[in-house]
């Protein structure tokens, strides 16, 4: 009986670890690492990250139903206008499952920056997005400078400061 029991338990453990090994875990990207390239349909043609090489890129993952994302829109519009000449490019990756929701949002709150659509959520998976909105600042060398989760009015200043530093950094 004891032998049977130990066999059962061993079987259990083997099954458990086999199953655990199949579970997929996505890791967040670390600062200093290369930003994974992506290509998504945008408002005018496709949007490809590697095409923006040489500029400082602010990639923001947003959705129409997310309150802080709405708040961040006016800030991103401002910042895009202000630093366009210095080489800042903002890409807002929309993650709405229904594209119409995104279109409706954009008709109410037009974006003055590039919008890309990822209804399947493939890009946030590779970027390890843990909450909405999440943004990544990518330097001119294509390396991630920082990752920012959420958006509050109080974040405006510190984010702008970091973008400024990135724009002033040498290529």
């Amino acid at each position, binding site marked *: *009986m004891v*032998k*049977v029991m130990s*066999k*059962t338990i061993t*079987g*259990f453990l083997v*099954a*458990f670890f086999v*199953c*655990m090994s*199949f*579970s*997929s875990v996505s890791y967040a990207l670390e600062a200093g690492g290369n930003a994974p390239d992506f290509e998504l349909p945008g408002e005018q043609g496709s949007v490809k990250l590697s095409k923006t090489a040489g500029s400082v890129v602010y990639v923001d*993952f947003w*959705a129409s*139903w*997310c*309150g*802080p*994302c709405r708040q961040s829109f006016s800030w991103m519009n401002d910042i895009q206008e202000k630093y366009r000449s210095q080489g800042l490019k903002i890409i807002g990756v929309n*993650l*709405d*499952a229904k594209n119409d929701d995104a279109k409706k949002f954009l008709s109410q709150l037009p974006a003055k920056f590039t919008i890309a659509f990822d209804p399947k*959520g493939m890009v*946030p*998976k590779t970027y390890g*997005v*843990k*909450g*909405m*909105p*999440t943004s990544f600042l990518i330097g001119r060398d294509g390396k991630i400078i920082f990752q920012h989760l*959420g958006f509050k009015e109080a974040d405006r200043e510190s984010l702008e400061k970091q973008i400024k530093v990135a724009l002033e950094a040498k290529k």
Partner: protein
Amino acid sequence: MKKYEMQKPLYVLLLMIMLALSGCAVGTAVQPWEKETLARPEMTFEGDKLDTAYTEHIYSSKEGASGGAGVGGGGCGCN
């Protein structure tokens, strides 16, 4: 030996349950960008924002500590 024979179906059954349960853990976590429905206001436990704030204020005064009451906007953790 006969005892072991008796145990075999049970052993297989347990293994099957184990495998079935593991399905709950594999790749089914709701991703942040999939929380559209969860983010809706009706998905919160409390209905009225002001009333909740009031109740929480009294509670934190009584406890002498605040926080841990979760975040607004259902399960999205963003609103």
